[in-house]
């Protein structure tokens, strides 16, 4: 599948934002984070700015962005529509949570918890858009939902730890970051192992129904140049590049942030702050690469009509 930049930016940025929002909404009312108003303003601003930037980025993927509001109508059947509804609805409790905290110094448990629920539901909807697509077998996989949720948790907690260093450090959050990285790592390796070992859902024989006649080879393609299907669905990433990118994501995007989060727990002052910020930047980059791979490694069954033998 073609890794469209706007879509990858969308899910990476909203992952950061919703992860951060959910953590603030749950941890602050229970007194696990400072109630400082400036902290509330900065952290919620980062979360909401990241969510908004991601949602705006997704509009660049649309052919008719001016009609985007129509996407809120089909929540009964469409995960994309549900995601839109959840994303817009989450602004309401998040706004109330922020206004009460920043302007009135009150941390509302109800607004916080509802914001967190909205954030988690929106990320679930994003994951389900892919998870529900049978024609892309590597997306129609049980690991997809946990990976999206854990990626949002990991990027949210990394940025929370980084921001907290300006408001008196809180080593436990960096510890939580290390745990979230480890959890995402396990889920991501589980996903990669699953897609590497899964047997094909569909084959050229089932796509054409000519299995009983014999083995099928493409003799002549229907067109001599590219078309929409090949550009969008026929994107192919060389296996050796995929392996290298997986290693880069694992070491640079998860391994280093894990170690840096450990350093942030063990040290204090500016080394801890530098480690937390570097961890947040590298971790987000790692999720961006992982998300790019999620598209680039996925193969659509329509490629079976264009000469692939299995998908």
């Amino acid at each position, binding site marked *: *599948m073609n890794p469209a930049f706007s879509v990858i930016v969308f899910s990476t940025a909203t992952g950061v934002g919703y992860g951060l929002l959910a953590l603030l909404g749950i941890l602050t009312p229970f007194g696990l984070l400072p109630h400082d108003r400036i902290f509330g303003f900065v952290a919620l601003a980062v979360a909401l700015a990241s969510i908004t930037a991601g949602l705006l980025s997704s509009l660049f*993927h*649309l*052919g*008719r*962005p001016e*009609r*985007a509001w*129509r*996407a*809120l*109508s*089909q929540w*009964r*059947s*469409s*995960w*994309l*529509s549900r995601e*839109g509804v959840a994303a817009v609805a989450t602004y309401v409790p998040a706004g109330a949570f922020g206004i009460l905290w920043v302007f009135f110094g009150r941390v509302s448990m109800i607004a916080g918890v509802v914001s967190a629920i909205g954030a988690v539901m929106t990320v679930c909807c994003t994951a389900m*858009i892919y998870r*529900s*697509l*049978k*024609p*892309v077998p590597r997306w129609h996989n049980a690991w997809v939902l946990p990976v999206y949720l854990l990626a949002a948790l990991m990027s949210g907690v990394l940025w929370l730890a980084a921001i907290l260093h300006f408001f008196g450090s809180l080593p436990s959050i960096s510890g939580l970051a290390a745990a979230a990285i480890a959890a995402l790592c396990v889920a991501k390796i589980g996903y990669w192992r699953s897609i590497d070992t899964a047997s094909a*859902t*569909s084959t050229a024989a*089932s*796509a*054409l*129904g*000519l299995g*009983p*006649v*014999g*083995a*099928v*080879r*493409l*003799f*002549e*393609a*229907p*067109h*001599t*140049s*590219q*078309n*929409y*299907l090949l550009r*969008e*669905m026929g994107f192919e990433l060389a296996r050796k590049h995929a392996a290298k990118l997986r290693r880069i994501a694992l070491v640079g995007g998860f391994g280093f942030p894990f170690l840096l989060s450990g350093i942030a727990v063990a040290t204090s002052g500016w080394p801890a702050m530098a480690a937390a910020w570097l961890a947040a930047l590298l971790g987000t980059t790692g999720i961006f690469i992982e998300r790019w791979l999620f598209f680039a490694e996925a193969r*659509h*069954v*329509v490629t079976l*009509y*264009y000469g692939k033998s299995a998908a």
Partner: protein
Amino acid sequence: MTSLPPSSSSSKRLGLVIDLDICVGCHACAVNCKEWNSAGAAGPLTDFAPYDAEPDGVWFNRVHTYEVGEGSEGRTVHFPRSCLHCAEPACVTVCPTGASFKRAEDGIVLVDENLCIGCKLCSWACPYGAREFDHDAGIMKKCTLCIDRIYNESFAVEDRIPACVATCPASARHFGDLGDPDSDVSRLVAERGGYDLMPEMAYGPTNKYLPPRPRQKSAGCTGAPAELVHAGTAKDGLLGWLDRLLSR
């Protein structure tokens, strides 16, 4: 609206039956489809750089050609691919705007061009590559089963069929109601063992494909063998003498 109509709404399921045994791969169906739909309700089907080295454009019908089987059992199969107007079309249910819909009265899957936001998710949800994005209009386009022909009362009754069916010079394409077990197309499917593409996807395609008939082993009523058999080398007589002379 993008929820599917209840299955009880109508038993009518209009669709195509494509005979892979007699399709000659001439692409006339694809060309006439393009021709009709460039001007019809779904038009224009935008082309980009049509006269350049890398032409690109929206088509509702694509004809692939395959080699099937090995050696003397091998054969060429031409395979027209278009929207199958599925019973359970995920392209419809994933649509966030209600632009994609399945008609309750005849099962035709359509896109409302005034509602489509061009998110392309429906094209991801279709296993058969039936939907092609029009970059110029910013919306998704697909086969309409020539809805502006089949119900067109200004046409003579025999012309109220999709453009691809009307133009096929080999009569490899048939149009009819596959929801009616007594229709000509349903009988054809039953008789020839018509099948679904990618049944494992469980989309319940309406269109059916008829498999190539078994290869003929004799030359029909003449009684002659289908393949020439080597007559062997003559050992005596004039031909034997010539053979020996020339083999020297």
